[in-house]
Every structure is written in C-alpha cells, then in structure tokens.
C-alpha cells in the first residue's frame, strides 16, 4: 500500500503543478470548456484513487468538486466567480493535504465542511473569502522522480556494454599476467555489477503492485452488491515491466468488478444453484513461455450467451441470422464488441465506465491478448496475456546434450538426483515414468527432446506447467542466476521450446527454455485444470478414487479400465473372432461387434475374455487375457497419451489406465493423412501428434493403391501427384487462412475435412 500511496502523492503533486496554469486561466474565463475539463479530470482522478487508498477526507473534497463541475459540464449550472473560488479552494486544500501526507504531518480538518458548502449554488457565506493556505505545512522532500522509459533503455544498454568491456579487460589483464591493476579491476567489477542490478530493477516491478489494490476493490464492490466473495491472489512475485503494470491496472480492476457484478451470484442464488454462499474469485499471475498470464477466475454463473445474443438482436434485429449462426465461443466473443453493454451480459450495477471492447483494445495495444473460458453456471475465467518484453527472471542454468540452457526458476518445483536411489524410472509404452517419493511423473530428457547427443540423465528437474507436472532429465545443474530475458527472433521461437534468450555476463548467449513448450514437443498432454477448483477445500474427499477393473492385457501388461465403462465381461472364444475390412470383429449371435484395444490387435488365444463397453461408448469389445480384480484408483493419476487416461500406482505398480472415451472414439479404420512436399519433415515434427490425435494415420509417402483422405501441403507448393480427397494448405504467416503454427486450427480443419 505504501508504494501505491507514494505513487498517488507523486502523481497528484505532478498534476497539481500541471493544472496550476489551467486554474488561473479558468479563473480568468470561467466559460473556457477546455480548462474546466482539465480540472474536472483532476478531481475525478483524485477521487478514484482515494477510494483505493482509504483517504476519505481528500475523497470527500474531490467528490464534492467533481459533482459541482459535472453540473457545469452538463450545462445545469453556470460557472460564476463564487463557484470558481470554491473549486480552487478545494484544489488548494487537496494539495495541502497531499503535502501533509507526504511529510507525515497531520493537517487539521478545519473548515473543510465550509469548503464543500461553498460549492452549493445557494451558499450565502462570505463570498470571495477563501480560507487561507496553511503556510505552516513543510513541503516534504519528494523521494521519487519520473523518467522516460527510453532513458532507462539507454542506461541499460550502456551498462550491458560496460559489462562486456569489463570482461574483455579482465581477460586481457589475466593474459598479460600483470597484477598491478587487480584491485582496481575488482572494484570496477563490483561497481558495474551493482549498477547493472540497479538499472535492470528500475524497469521492473512485481505484479503485487497491481494486485495489492484488489482486496479493497473486491471488498468494496462486494459490499455494494450485497455479495460475499473470497479472493485468492497467487503469483504476486512475478516481475513485469513497469510500463506493462501501469497498462494492466485499469483492465484488471475492470475485470474484477465485472466478475463480482455479473459473474458471482447473490448468496441466495448461489444456494439455489447448489453452491457455497461465498463466491470465489482467484486472481493469479504466472509466466508461460515469454508471456505473463494474468487470470481472473470466478465460480459464478458464467456468461449466458443466449442472452448476450438476444440483447444485441433486440437493438439490431438485422443481425439475427448472423448471430444465430455463431458457435458458442464466437457468441462469447461478442462481449468484446463495441457498444455491447454489460446489461446484455447479465444484471447491471457496475456497468459504468469502460466496456470490454476498451479493455481488449488496451490489452492488444501492448501486444497482449485476452481469452475467455466460459462454463455456464460454473464460472468464467478471463486470461489476459501480455508479453514479457523485458523481464528479469530468476533462472536455473542447466546443461543437457553439452549445451547450457536457462529454465525459469518459477517453473522448477524441485531437482532430484537419479543416483540417490529415491527415484525409479519405468518404461511405459514409448514413454518413461519416474516415481519420486510415491509421485509418478512423465519423464522426458532435455537432450532427447532437443535432438542433442543423448546421455542418461543425472538430474531430474520437476517442472510445473499449466495442468500438471513432469520431470525433465538434464546432465547437470550449473547454478541459478538472475537473467534479463530478451525476446528471441521468430526463427528461434518457432522451435516451440524456447521462451526467449538472454546474454549472461559470460558474453555467450543462452536460451531460456519454455517448460510448457518442451512438454508439448515431447508429446505430453496435460488437461487444463480449473485453478479455482484446484484451490477448493477438499470437501469431496470420500468420493475420490473411482473403481476400476484391473486386467492382464493381450500384450501381457496389466492395465485398468473404469468399472463404469464396462457393461459385462464375457468369454471370447478364438473362433468367434474374424477379420474384415482391416478390423477384428466379434460375432456373438447378433450384429458383429468391433474389437478395440490400447495395443495392436491380433487373433485371440483360447481363454481370453472380452470386456463389453456400453452402447454409449460404441458398444465395442476390449479383448483381455484375464480380468484380475476390482481396484479403487488413487486420486493422483499422472497424465499419458490417448487412449490412456493416465498412469496410476496400484499396489506399488505403475498401471496404465485406459480412457474408455478414447477407445469408443477410435475410428473404424484410421483415416490417412499425407504430408506432402518439401516441408513434410517439418510437419511431421510439429503436427504429427496433433493429426494422430485427431484420428488420422500420418504418412509422408503413399503405398501403391493407397489414397489419402486429406493431404497437407505448404502454401505455394505444387500438388502434382497427390492422390487425395482433400488438400489443406498451410500458410507461413499468422495472417494466412490456415497458419501452420495454429495447431488448433489445423486440427479443426482436419476434423472438418473428415
């Protein structure tokens, strides 16, 4: 709060200096609208800040002046000299109080009622007599000045240059063997390091500066609306460019107010919906790649998109057909349309001020984006994502495949040595699972993911990414250091595994790894978990752990499948299975039933059983060697690729858990997707997993007689010799209809083509 107060004082003092001229000019010509507006803005801003800062005296003065000036602006009142005098007296008094706060002195509230009363048109006091400026207040020495960011940038570049010169000098001196300058060089090094630290910090601020005002905003807004809300704040120590913080301030407060007003219901409504009386609002900041993501998640009613559409249509009936054709997500995006009032979104109380369109414009202006995740009846999550153009990051420097990389310290949960015996690594399918103190995590090796020379990892860094954790095998951990992250060029970012780059004192550039990107490139899939629910008290503990059938699969491994996904278990005589149309079928009296499995199917041996899946899951049969037991699944399930729901530890053994939905969704015969042209190798690396997940088999070359349902080619590539049902062209820039890095769009296009 102190920091905010300091800022308020500096800002107010600055504005006072700036409007001093306006005040005089307005006094000379009370009809001057531009002057009037300037003074109005000043009292309005002061009033707003006072709400946050708990300065009721200043707030009351500013509020009264604002009301009077608003009446003038609205033409309801003519500015006469008495009004001008009264307003000026208030402006002066605000200045005096602010100076007193700054100096830490008390200022008697003498005559403030009179000042406010003087604004009244009916005021009959001694006209023209303005309470004298208290001359006794010592003007506090200002401890802050404002600098242009350009100047800071220049200082930063200068210091970086100095570090390199110092390094060079140290190197030369070491070569020459001359000891005479050693002391001086040490002092220089020390000074340069301190200077560098100071200069880099000038631009940075923790997100706390942004979050610290929120408890008050939430408390006041909730009280106004008669709602109860608990606020949780997370990630306040994330550092962000000062400028970015300023630009995020208004959008954030707006989003929080919106969540309280339109999202969270009254206690009575919540009870009726089967929720706790007290609403939850979670505001968090975290870094993902080279972006900072600020999330505002509420557990309210979400957005009623029907109502949103209806609201727009009632004002603009011409758009009816257009809006009806939109997908639910597109309808949600209507919130960002200019002129869509919050009244269309739900009830209205805090619908004053800027709309969502302004918020979005502001966020986009700083290179950010804003995304909505709507769960009707359960809440809305707004994610504001901004670039981390110039951020200091505490980084862990690791070595893998003979090269050093930086990992954001924030993403590293712990570092474990594989040799210590506390870990156990198992192969599972093509992947690996590491067990660290009863916690099972997918394991990937840094050198392997990056295609560098592979060694057995000596250390494991447990990394946390949105939705889960995984272990990253590295050769060594060198140290932790504070690095200044600079954005890397698109050519580098396209690798998908970097968050940026940095130039440490060594003078050798170092790449900053993106934990989420690495997981994605390595094929790990985490489902996004609702942060609010994650923080919910464990009220439903006794429900945890669904029942599952443990069985021996046809490849001899033990796997499990949720019991609810099996309608019955029946014997599977070898003779009842036959092959047709590239599939295995079970004839059991009626229509043939398709066999599905997590592994390659083959003709059954005698004694196998079939797990029959319910009709909703496609009614297929899952062949097994032997059903073993009914077990209760632990709540802690490590993620794995489809058709696995994950990996669970059952009786000390890592067991793959089958996802029955993925089995049912498996197509009768995988459709064929051809990667065509010179970029096929690139597509294989970047898109193959996504394409396969969409139910295709991916090939770079068609076998004779084969025909691909879909082919992918880069824009401008020839399509001669492509035997295909449909050709999708990938563009090289985000402006293209189908941008090749927009995996979601590519998958959607593939699904549409199917």
């Amino acid at each position, binding site marked *: 709060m102190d920091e905010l107060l300091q800022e308020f004082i500096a800002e107010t003092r600055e504005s006072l200096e700036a409007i001093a001229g306006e005040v005089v000019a307005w006094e000379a010509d009370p009809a001057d609208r531009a002057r009037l507006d300037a003074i109005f803005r000043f009292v309005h801003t002061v009033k707003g800040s006072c709400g946050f800062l708990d300065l009721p005296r200043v707030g009351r003065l500013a509020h009264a002046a604002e009301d009077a000036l608003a009446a003038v602006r609205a033409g309801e009142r003519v500015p006469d000299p008495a009004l001008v005098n009264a307003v000026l007296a208030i402006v002066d008094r605000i200045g005096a109080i602010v100076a007193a706060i700054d100096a830490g002195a008390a200022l008697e509230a003498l005559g403030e009622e009179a000042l406010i009363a003087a604004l009244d048109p009916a005021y009959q006091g001694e006209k023209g007599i303005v309470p004298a400026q208290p001359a006794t207040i010592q003007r506090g020495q200002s401890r802050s000045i404002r600098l242009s960011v350009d100047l800071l940038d220049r200082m930063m570049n200068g210091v970086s240059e100095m570090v390199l010169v110092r390094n060079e000098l140290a190197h030369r001196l070491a070569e020459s063997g001359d000891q005479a300058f050693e002391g001086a060089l040490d002092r220089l090094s020390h000074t340069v390091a301190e200077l560098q630290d100071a200069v880099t910090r000038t631009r940075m601020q923790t997100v706390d500066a942004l979050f610290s005002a929120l408890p008050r905003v939430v408390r006041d807004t909730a009280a106004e609306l008669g709602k109860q809300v608990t606020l949780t704040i997370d990630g306040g120590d994330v550092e962000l460019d000062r400028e970015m913080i300023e630009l995020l301030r208004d959008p954030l407060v707006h989003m929080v107010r919106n969540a309280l007003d339109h999202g969270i219901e009254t206690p009575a409504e919540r009870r009726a919906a089967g929720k706790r009386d007290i609403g939850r609002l979670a505001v968090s900041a975290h870094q993902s790649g080279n972006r900072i993501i600020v999330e505002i998640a509420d557990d309210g009613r979400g957005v009623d998109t029907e109502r949103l559409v209806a609201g727009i249509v009632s004002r603009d009936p011409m758009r009816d057909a257009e809006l009806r054709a939109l997908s639910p997500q597109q309808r949600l995006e209507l919130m960002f349309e200019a002129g869509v009032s919050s009244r269309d979104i739900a009830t209205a109380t805090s619908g004053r001020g800027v709309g969502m369109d302004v918020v979005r414009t502001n966020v986009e202006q700083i290179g950010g984006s804003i995304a909505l995740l709507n769960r009707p009846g359960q809440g809305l999550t707004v994610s504001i994502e901004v670039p981390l153009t110039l951020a200091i990051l505490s980084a862990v420097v690791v070595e893998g495949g003979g090269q050093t990389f930086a990992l954001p310290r924030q993403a590293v949960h712990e570092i474990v040595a594989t040799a210590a015996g506390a870990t156990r690594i198992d192969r599972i399918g093509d992947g690996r699972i590491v067990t660290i103190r009863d916690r099972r995590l997918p394991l990937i090796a840094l050198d392997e993911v990056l295609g560098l020379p592979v060694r057995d990892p000596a250390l494991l860094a447990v990394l946390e990414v949105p939705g889960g954790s995984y272990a990253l095998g590295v050769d060594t951990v060198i140290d932790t250091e504070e690095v200044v992250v600079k*954005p890397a060029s698109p050519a580098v970012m396209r690798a998908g595994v970097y968050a940026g780059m940095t130039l440490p004192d060594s003078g050798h550039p170092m790449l900053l790894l993106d934990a989420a990107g690495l997981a994605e490139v390595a094929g790990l899939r985490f489902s996004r978990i609702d942060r609010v629910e994650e923080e919910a008290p464990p009220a439903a503990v006794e429900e945890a752990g669904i029942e599952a059938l443990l069985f021996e699969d046809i490849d001899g491994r033990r796997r499990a499948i949720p019991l609810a996904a099996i309608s019955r278990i029946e014997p599977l005589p070898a003779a009842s299975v036959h092959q047709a149309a590239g599939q295995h079928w079970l004839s059991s009296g009626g229509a043939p039933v398709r066999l599905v499995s997590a592994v390659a199917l083959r003709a059954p041996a005698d004694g196998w059983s079939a797990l029959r899946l319910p009709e909703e899951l496609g009614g297929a049969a899952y062949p097994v060697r032997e059903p073993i037991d009914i077990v209760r699944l632990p709540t802690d399930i490590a993620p794995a690729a489809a058709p696995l729901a994950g990996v669970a530890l059952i009786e000390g053994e890592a067991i793959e858990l089958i996802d029955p939905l993925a089995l049912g969704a498996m197509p009768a015969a995988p459709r064929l997707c051809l990667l065509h042209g010179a970029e096929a190798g690139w597509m294989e690396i970047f898109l193959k997993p996504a394409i396969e997940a969409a139910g295709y088999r991916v090939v770079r070359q068609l076998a004779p007689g084969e025909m691909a349902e879909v082919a992918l080619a880069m824009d401008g590539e020839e399509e001669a010799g492509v035997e295909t049902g449909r050709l999708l062209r990938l563009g090289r820039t985000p402006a293209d209809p189908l941008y090749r890095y927009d995996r979601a769009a590519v998958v959607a296009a593939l699904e549409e083509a199917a």
Partner: protein
Amino acid sequence: MSARELHLVGRLGGRGVLFPATQVRRVVDIADIVPVPHAAPAVRGLAALRSRVVTVIDSWRVLDLPSPPPGRHRAVTTAVDGHVYAVLVDDLEDAEPVEVVPLPPGTALGESWAAIATGSAVRDGEPLLAIDLARLIARVG
C-alpha cells in the same frame, strides 16, 4: 532511368550478390555461435554482437547449398520486425552504387534464389544478383 543505389557487393555460395545498403546495419565477423537445437536447420544459432544477441542465419542452407564448416564467417546484420539477424556470406568486397534492373527474361535462378532475388546488376562484366535480406530471412522456415 532508375537511380543507382548503394549496395554491398559480396559472394554467397560462390555467386556474386548485392545487398541493398539500406537493409544492412553492419558488416561483422562471427565466430562464436551458440546453437539453437530443434530450430529450423537454417538457424545457425545465436551470437553476441556487443550487448546485442543476434540470430545467425545459415544462408547456404536457405539456398540449399552445402554449408561451410564452422569457424569465423563474415556476415551482414539486418533488422526485421525489431529482431536483428546476422546473415552469413562467403565474403564481402565493397560497397558501391549500382543500378539494379529486372533479370533478363527467361533466367532460371532455381526456386530458392528466385524467392529472394529482386533483380540484377552487372559489375566488371560479371552479373550480380540483388538479394532482399528480409525475404531471405522469411525463407528460414
């Protein structure tokens, strides 16, 4: 008559090339390159030029030519969208004003060269291909 504009004359893959002086920030020698694993092959890596980190482009790869072995190479630096790239070349000779004219009709440059060429000029009887650095970088993939 189109004006003669200042160009850097250099060699790339044994061919004479021209880079418009307006696109070139500096001519540098680059020796220490930190590789960028998993990036496109034409990204040779990162290098520090004073306090700035630049992305080093393997121009030969962009043009499907054999890359020379690692070592000290000459490069021109250029900025695209606020990012600075060092584009490696065989050699750079000179800067001089030349008049770039469209290629003679029917000239077959090959796909990679054609994508980055803007025209040509003749110097001392040798035809030189004018290269657009931004287009070269866009081809990195």
